[in-house]
């Protein structure tokens, strides 16, 4: 198939194939590109949002509060406060005269009326707050003194960097909550970092560890709460699932609280088994290590037949991957390999250099690797490489469907857990449903006529 090559000169360094010299990544987007990326605020918000009993107040015009109102399927076992949208809805007069007074008043109104009473408030300062000169730090400090609760500023103007910087700001905000509690007594157990409990995935992982005999002290940030956050310093080990958002937090916690960490991934058989064993081994208890191995072997054996059952329908298909972080892309490539599906295009929004190195080592020489791809590039390479399915997020879904390519949502909108052993079955079934849907028959009229 002839595909027109219209790739911007500035973008060429961010695309690699065959003669790989390392990809250009961790950079700002090119002005004018139809980028699939979001902003600093978005990064901060998605990481902190699952803290279920926190009041998340967006200080800025209404949009940033509207677009992030209950957007992620991060499930809660307790409070539902985080599923509301709070903001100062700044108006023109606030822009002229400053918005700090309104922010103060908003906190007062919340403290006066909110039930249950807030113990933790995050104040997100969006694009213009710094520009109009609001001293958000001072407002938060005063409010903490006035009410004796935690009021944490998250100064995340969208323009100040990429989504990754927002992740880091979220981590810094959580560190502010944890620090006063860092001298508490240690307890044997782990914190799960970088799992947002989408479709209840964190609960699945937590269940595995508990079954093996590894207590989970706290989870960040899926199904988290103020009480759980302040317990995190007690843990003996941090495990980091979404490294893109949480590796920084793990590093800080290691330095400040002496908690070592291991990176894990619970997507796919290979990575799930390896991760469980790695965590168990890191705890240095032979009995737990043995149980972890037994557990992984047992579950792998259970899942194998499912994988084998669907393989004939899936083997030989070609996949395109476009996800947020590099670590997830790596897991997905492995998962597709397990099914006999070749990954022909792989891209991330915010992958790191070392992650791209792993990706490039896992895929064939002719696989296209992209950083911060735009729809034009995704389309071009998916068609060129004949991808049968795209794994991505909400913005990529309609693109895939329009091209007549199957789709699997591996982002905020996934409705079934895709992590752990249970997730393997769901993932295979979703892939199969989309690739082998009867709808594709209607695409080619001649075929339907038969």
């Amino acid at each position, binding site marked *: 198939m002839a595909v027109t090559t219209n790739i911007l000169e500035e973008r060429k360094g961010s695309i690699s194939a065959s003669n790989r010299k390392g990809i250009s990544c961790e950079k700002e987007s090119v*002005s*004018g590109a139809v980028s699939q990326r*979001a902003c*600093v605020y978005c990064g901060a918000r998605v990481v902190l949002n699952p803290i279920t009993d926190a009041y998340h107040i967006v200080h800025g015009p209404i949009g940033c509060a509207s677009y992030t109102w209950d957007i992620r399927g991060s499930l809660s076992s307790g409070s539902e406060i985080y599923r*509301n949208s709070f903001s*100062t809805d700044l108006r023109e007069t606030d822009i002229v005269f400053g918005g700090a007074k309104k922010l103060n008043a908003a906190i*007062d109104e919340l403290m006066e009326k909110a039930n249950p009473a807030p113990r933790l408030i995050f104040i997100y300062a969006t694009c213009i707050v710094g520009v109009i000169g609001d001293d958000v730090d001072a407002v938060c400090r005063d409010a903490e003194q006035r009410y004796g609760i935690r009021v944490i500023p998250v100064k995340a103007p969208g323009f100040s960097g990429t989504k990754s910087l927002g992740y880091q700001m979220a981590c810094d905000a959580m560190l502010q909550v944890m620090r006063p509690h860092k001298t508490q007594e240690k307890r044997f157990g782990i914190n799960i970092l970088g799992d947002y409990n989408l479709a209840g995935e964190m609960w699945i992982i937590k269940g595995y560890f508990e079954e093996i005999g590894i207590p989970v002290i706290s989870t960040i940030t899926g199904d988290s709460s103020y009480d759980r956050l302040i317990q995190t310093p007690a843990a003996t080990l941090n495990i980091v699932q979404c490294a893109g958002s949480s590796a920084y937090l793990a590093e800080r916690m290691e330095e400040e609280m002496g908690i070592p960490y291991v990176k894990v991934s619970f997507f796919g058989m290979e990575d799930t088994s390896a991760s469980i064993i790695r965590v168990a081994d890191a705890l240095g208890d032979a009995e737990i290590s043995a149980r972890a191995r037994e557990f992984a072997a047992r579950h792998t054996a259970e899942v194998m037949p499912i994988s084998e059952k669907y393989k004939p329908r899936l083997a030989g298909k070609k996949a395109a991957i476009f996800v947020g972080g590099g670590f997830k892309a790596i897991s997905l490539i492995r998962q597709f390999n397990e099914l006999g599906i070749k990954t022909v295009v792989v891209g991330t929004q915010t992958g790191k250099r070392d992650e791209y190195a792993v990706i490039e080592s896992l895929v064939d020489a002719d696989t296209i690797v992209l950083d911060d791809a735009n729809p034009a590039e995704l389309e071009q390479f998916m068609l060129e490489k004949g991808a049968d399915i795209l794994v991505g997020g*909400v913005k990529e879904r309609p693109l895939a469907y*329009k091209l007549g390519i199957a789709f699997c949502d591996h982002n905020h909108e996934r409705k079934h857990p895709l992590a752990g052993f249970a997730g393997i079955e769901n993932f295979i079934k979703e892939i199969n449903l989309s690739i082998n849907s009867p709808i594709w028959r209607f695409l080619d009229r001649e075929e339907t006529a038969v």
Partner: protein
Amino acid sequence: MLDLTGKEVKERRALRVNPCKTCQPVGAMYAALGVKRCMPHSHGSQGCCSYHRTVLSRHFKEPAIASSSSFTEGASVFGGRSNINTAVKNVFDMYDPDIIAVHTTCLSETIGDDLISYIMDMDLPEGKTVVHCNTPSYVGSHINGFFNMMMGFMNYLTKKTGTSNGKAAIFPGWVNPGDIREIKRIAIAMGVPYIMFPDQSGVLDAPMTGKYEYYTNGGTTLPEIAALGDTDQLIALGEITNIEPAELLQKKWKVPYALLPMPVGVAYTDVYIMALQKFSKQEVPYELEEQRGQLVDLLLDSHPYTSGKKAAIFGDPDVVIGLTSLCLEADIIPQYVITGTPKEEFTRKVNALLTQYNAEGCTVKANADLFELHQWIKNEPVDLLIGSTYGKQIAKAEDIPFVRAGFPVLDRYAGTLLPIVGYTGAIRLVEKITEALMDRQDRDAADEDFEIVM
């Protein structure tokens, strides 16, 4: 969320909880997607562009393209001139639209970017156009963004040749592509040659072809926008959304306008058809008469199930006014009627409508939010909730039948393909409303009251 909403209503001045609106730029993006071969461009941080595209994709289940100036720290200090210049060059090079429609954001407005002079100084490729509008996110709502973008196109592109093109301009307001198709069908049936502006039909309801096109066959063409100045009459649907664009076309090119409500329900569809008739001087064809008759017949048949029921209606001003009118026609009491858009004109219009039907004791509010609405409902329950997806939390908490209409609907399919306007749209709405009410009646019925025939 469910426990959070207490019964006790206290006035809030600073804190917005669960908004019933969003910011201007997404409206500008939606309007610009209704222009053929147009790339909407967001002049601000790239998160804005990403959020707007996401919400449009979630509502329409379609790709929504737009580019961004991708502001950096430097741009926020020194201004966004170099960002927009680079962006415009890149967009034309790479995506090859005929026109780029730039809208601003809270950031570029606050730092004072002067888009007029930036655009004037641009060296554009032959035959390419850049237009802009100002959409400060801290003024009005997404509705303002929608009409501001319309006016941006009109300011840059409309002309008057002195010779009438014999057409009517039709401004559909913020509706779904399915509505635009219905508005067109009625205009054609009434023999009115028209220019529809903007026109997202064929764009955000494009068929599956196995190909992905940035630019579909849909959308108002640039010559059509230019020719708005040569039209004989403007029929503007949606009094709140279209007042400013209508005034602009009149002031600029002396095109007289009929500013009408969104044609939802019997009366408002009649008003639209009468305006078309005034233009074409044609008899209303049997096709439309028949449908009107069917709708009235349906309202009569179903009225035992709708009469006296109480509804809460929320959303954007014009669609809410239309839905309120339809509810009153079905003898449903619009107990609470709110919009998040800060326009007092809304309150006046709805109250006038309530007076026409002698509906008393209803609460009407602009610049309201859904937390407030939820509190009212807790104090004095309703039988039916009509509005965007964001009502579903209230509907579940209070166990109220819920009909989705307006923007955004993020959790259901096919709604954007079908109309709520015109007699056809009203028939569809009455079906949805009666099904919601009667399903509830069935669900709650004791076995002995559970009936096959209703």
